[in-house]
């Protein structure tokens, strides 16, 4: 199997991706979608059309030529929004609903945790927290948190 992709990507005036497949058909408004956004973000990326139908499949992002990969990564990064919590700065109360002030990889923010059930354990060390607007926050490595954050978090686990 060749490592070269059998499709091409470009960007239209609206900033959307346009896909041209090997047989020459052109698809506007294409979005890349990760199959395992948390468990394995670099493997398995589908290019889907506006209706959500799969047009192309990238088994491994690294295997793509740099320009293609860049384009896909750019598009992903403009849409993907799962801030990773680096530290819990403060919580308003230990009973829900509780306002959490957190430091994420995207800056400091405050969100409201509606109930403890919104903290889901993806693996023994990874938590996915959804706020009152269903925005997801990822806590990738529980043991790596500082002591204070862990202590605060512990009250909710």
């Amino acid at each position, binding site marked *: *199997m060749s490592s070269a*992709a059998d499709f091409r990507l470009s960007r239209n005036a*609206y900033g959307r991706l346009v896909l041209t497949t090997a047989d020459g*058909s052109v698809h506007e408004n294409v979005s890349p979608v990760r199959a395992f956004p948390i468990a394995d973000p670099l493997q398995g990326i589908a290019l889907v059309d506006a209706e959500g139908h*799969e047009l192309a499949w990238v088994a491994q992002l690294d295997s793509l030529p740099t320009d293609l990969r860049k384009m896909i990564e750019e598009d992903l990064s403009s849409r993907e929004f799962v801030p990773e919590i680096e530290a819990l700065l403060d919580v308003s109360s230990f*009973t829900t609903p509780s306002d959490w002030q957190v430091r994420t990889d995207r*800056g400091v923010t405050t969100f409201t945790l509606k109930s403890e059930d919104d903290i889901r354990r993806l693996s023994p060390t990874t938590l996915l927290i959804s706020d009152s*607007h*269903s925005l997801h926050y990822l806590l990738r490595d529980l043991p790596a948190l500082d002591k204070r954050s862990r202590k605060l978090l512990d009250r909710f686990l």
Partner: protein
Amino acid sequence: MVYRMNNNSSLSEPTLAPQESLLATLELDLDARLQFAPTRLALTDQRLLANLGEGWQAWPLSPELALHHDDHAGVGALELRDAASRLACWRYTLGCEPRVRAFAARFDLAQTGTPAAPIEDISTEVAEETPEERGGWALLRLWRFARPYRGQLLLGFLLTLAATAATLVPPYLTMPLMDKVLIPFQNGQPIDWLLVWTYLGGLLGASLLAWVLGWLRTYILARVSERIGRDLRTTTYKHLLGLSLEYFGGKRTGDLMARIGSETDRINVFLSLDLLNFATDVLMIVMTAVILFSINPWLALITLLPLPIIAWMIHLVREKLRTGFEKIDRVWAEVTNVLADTIPGIRVVKAFAQERRESERFHAANEHNLAMNDKLNKTWSLFAPSVTLLTEFGLLIVWAYGIWQISKNEITVGVLTAFLAYIGRFYTRLDSMSRIVSATQRAASSTKRIFDILDHVSSVPETPNPVTLKEVRGGIELRHVGFRYGNRTVTRDVSLTIAPGEMIGLVGHSGSGKSTMVNLICRFYDVSEGALLLDGVDIRQLAVADYRRHIGLVLQEPFLFFGTIADNIAYGKPDATRAEIIAAARAAHAHEFILRLPHGYDSLVGERGQGLSGGERQRISIARALLIDPRILILDEATSSVDTTTEREIQAALDNLVQGRTTIAIAHRLSTLRKADRLVVMDKGEVVEVGNHDELMAKEGAYYALYQAQARNVDTDLDDVRPNTRSIPHVQRS
């Protein structure tokens, strides 16, 4: 056309031209790289301005400019476009969504040249959710349930006071018994028998009094606490049933069962036992202290010395125990969750031979529970013996100080005896008091979890002033209905008018929003946008139960409750007569097979209707819907899970059901919808085609494709009907 304005201060107000007036401003919470940072937008009658933190950028308004907003996975994008391209894009989290919507609407107004409205900041215009009252000590909130019993509670308290006082009499009597009888006798005086009998009588009387009072007190308070527990359980369950399906979707059965079952029981035990004991203890300590001080202040002071140390210890352990118990509760819920997951799914577990894995999962949850308990017990086990040790020290101090005082003739032997008798009781109470720490924390965490349910406001709220419809005709109108589930938009801008008595067939592949439409019409969820009207009245203005009474629902998987067949048919109308039940069963073509069962209508059906075939269960659920004689009927894939022969039987029953009612039917098999007046084809949460079979066939659109596919192959999904099946190019790792 884009130019920067010389304004360096990052998020200040934009500088406006002399004749320019500000129409609206908007604050967003993300920047271009999706970092949390404020972005400001402003709309004037001439321009649209934006500031991403590095000065204002402006676009003069022109007719071809348009604002689009869209969202994906919790992030919204507001785009400014002209006829040919995207000019700018701003990002925000969904919390800003209402403001963005308002801003975009204002922008459209400004585009059409509507006269300038007063300057308004949209950030403040859309009311923020006010955070409801939070915090507060959970246990105090139980007062709401204790209030109705306050008379009995007061009586119980007075009895406690009296009973405690009575138990304190005997040690007091030992003092004169010692000093006036025994010591003088040792010194050679004869025993005054009258005095002895008086004191002994006093001792007996006090004990009997304490016994009677204690019995009464315990009985009354236990009665009250049982009632509080009952009220708590029923109120919680009632509230739980009132919550929307959205709530149940996010909860696990085992957890909810544990909360209503065992946790209310724990609160109950706390109120009837632990709290009662604690109150008695406190009273006893206070009274004892008063008595001791009245006898001898110095000795009293020495005796009470260990008290602050114990209090400090209790405080020290409190935090640790509380968090520990909260954790144990959650772990315990996890254990029940494993059970609640596995037992209903036992067929799948067995079919895939995963018994061992499930057993290991349970084992793991159990181990986790054990580990948590072990950890907590380390602290807890040290705590109680330490209290005992301290009491022993306390006794030692009193002995030593007392003997020294006697040697100096400061106090009598009787006083020391009385003191020792008092503090014997006193310290045992302290020991038991220390148990209140854990009991309180346990009860507090239980209370918190109960109030978590009680505080949850249904997302399908009851209107305070419901409108009552005298007669329901069954006309349904959907006006620009949109629905969002979590951060996913499920349906958008659906408008449809259904005449009374009309039958509508909803068609589309799975995920196209058909079931959502049904859930919205049943008001299991409320619309996020637009409105749903019944006979011209917004259904949010009707009382929920009132509204649902007019709806008959037949689901793909009929649910039969444990009980007789008659009970199940009469579920929606418990006071139905036998004749009505039979009539409904006849109409549903269920009468004959029911009679074939050994106990007829009295046959018991199991939790999931075991012993009946799918078609039979379905016909019972049709009879159930028929019995309440609803104006609106909803058939959600009513015949999807049965074979074609059974379908024919059910279909005959359904035809009876549909007559004269507004019907909304979802079906995979288009043949089921042959009687529908109109077919509504849905795709991606939008209505794509409406019309009857012939019209839609003539149109050769989505319905045509679907029909063609089904004509070739019986069970085909719209999803599989793609005009050109493309091969998907793959990129493999070399």
